[in-house]
């Protein structure tokens, strides 16, 4: 029995090592200077260049146009992550509320139109999407960056599912208590959805923050680059370099993953609940 349990722990520890080591190595790399790494390979203990590397990445303008530093990219990532998640939650809650709690002639038509967005991910309609956003003059704007990503109905489905599980008697009690459509939404439904909102916020924030393809297309102006978008830029500089800036690239990678990782780890239980329930 004990030996079996030991084996379980060994398997789990190997799994943990497999998941954690690459990121730890990336972080350690970011604390050494590029020349050390280039001469003697990857290091396995912390170096002493942590402050200087991160200061460079965060404050020194890089890229081709020398207009964007890490702080600007961090800000853009935050705008994308927050704008996307908050926008999506607001819009999809309203839509789900209409679909679940109102009787109106076009209800099922609207439902199917929204439903259809689940059928085609952005990646397969990327070219026409780009052209439309371009023709609307939204290239290199936050609107063009965020709004088209909201088109998918995942959030609406999530809230629809949740609203359907809210006991009917609550609406009935609220109506007897004199609450109209708007009051019921604000006083009862939104507070009831708090945990759900938190869960979907975490998932959507991570999803928005981690967007890559769409930002790559829609932001050519470097002042709109997000951290994740900036990675490609680093690599392009890297290709031409004699000694690649491994340390700075990894510092950028660490910065790009830190906020979503922190959010996911801290709000783990909400996040898991949201992830597992939203796909039901």
């Amino acid at each position: 029995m004990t030996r079996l349990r030991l084996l379980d722990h060994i398997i789990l520890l190997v799994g943990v090592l497999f998941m954690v080591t690459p990121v730890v190595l990336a972080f350690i790399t970011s604390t050494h200077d590029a020349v050390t790494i280039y001469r003697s390979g990857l290091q396995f203990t912390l170096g002493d260049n942590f402050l200087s590397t991160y200061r460079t990445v965060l404050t020194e303008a890089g890229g081709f146009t020398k207009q964007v530093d890490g702080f600007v990219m961090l800000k853009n990532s935050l705008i994308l992550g927050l704008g996307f998640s908050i926008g999506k939650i607001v819009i999809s809650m309203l839509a789900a509320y209409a679909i679940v709690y109102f009787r109106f002639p076009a209800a099922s038509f609207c439902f199917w139109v929204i439903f259809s967005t689940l059928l085609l991910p952005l990646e397969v309609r990327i070219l026409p999407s780009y052209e439309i956003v371009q023709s609307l003059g939204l290239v290199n704007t936050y609107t063009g960056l965020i709004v088209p990503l909201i088109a998918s109905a995942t959030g609406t489905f999530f809230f629809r599912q949740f609203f359907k599980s809210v006991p009917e008697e609550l609406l009935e009690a609220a109506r007897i208590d004199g609450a109209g459509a708007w009051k019921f939404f604000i006083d009862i439904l939104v507070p009831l959805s708090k945990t759900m909102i938190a869960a979907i916020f975490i998932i959507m924030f991570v999803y928005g923050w981690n967007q890559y393809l769409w930002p790559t297309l829609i932001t050519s102006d470097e002042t709109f680059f997000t951290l994740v978008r900036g990675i490609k830029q680093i690599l392009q500089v890297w290709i031409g370099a004699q000694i690649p800036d491994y340390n700075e690239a990894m510092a950028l990678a660490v910065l790009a993953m830190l906020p979503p990782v922190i959010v996911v780890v801290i709000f783990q239980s909400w996040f898991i609940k949201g992830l597992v329930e939203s796909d039901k």
Partner: protein
Amino acid sequence: MKKVQFQNRWIPYLLLLPQLSIVAVFFLWPAAEAVRASFFLEDPFGFGSTFVGFDNFIDTVSSSDYLRVTRFTVVFTFFVTFFSLGLALLLAVKADKVLHGSSAYKTLLMWVYAVAPPVAGLIGILLFDQHVGPIVDMAALVGWKMQIGVNYFDTGMAMTMVAVWKQIPVNFIFFLSGLQGISKSVQEAAAIDCRSGIRRFWTVTFPLLAPTGFFLLIINITYAFFDTFGIIDVMLKTQPGNDPITLVYKVYQDGFRGNDLGGSSAQSVILMLVVFVLTIVQFRLIERRVHYT
């Protein structure tokens, strides 16, 4: 739907307006545009376009390049799905079983969910780097000269590994919550009926987990098709004609780099059909899953 609903002439439309207008402008319009463009040949100098019927589709499907990319996509999808599901299941079963430190294991095994695919790709580049990558060094010990970005096989394998690494957490979370959803009394009944733990797993736990597994299978195929774009884009060293890329990447490459609007759109439409089928299957499975539990 609810038994009791509000009745109002215009409030529901007002509530739906933001969502519907975004869907119309940024979903329906581009999707229709993709279908339309797939039947036209765009003049490379921008002087209009001509209707060519199914020519774009025929050209696409009959090109050897497209077949090669399709083959890679299938192989890549298979390995990513197989390994990420298998490893995640193993870890979930073990994490469900241990009494001590299970929440620590859970956290450590799931947080990679939050790492963006291109960031994963960048870390992959470091580990597989020609000069400093430890994995290349290890391969060299057994006489394997790994050349990521140059050798087709090596690059594809590195991408697969990174893609598996990135996908394990999602599968792990779902499998673990599936395992925890199996009622304790069923497990206890099984423990009374069957001595062998391994047999118990395959005859009781695994069948009960199957709905979750089917569901994840679809999720993983979708992931391998679409969400690995960032990994591929970062890890490729752009040597045209030799790079292992997926169908989705080729849509992007032909459309934006090759300026082949019609061909790229035809590929989009083919992919739409694939996703369509996957989604339908997924919804059938979700229905089953709900009935199952």
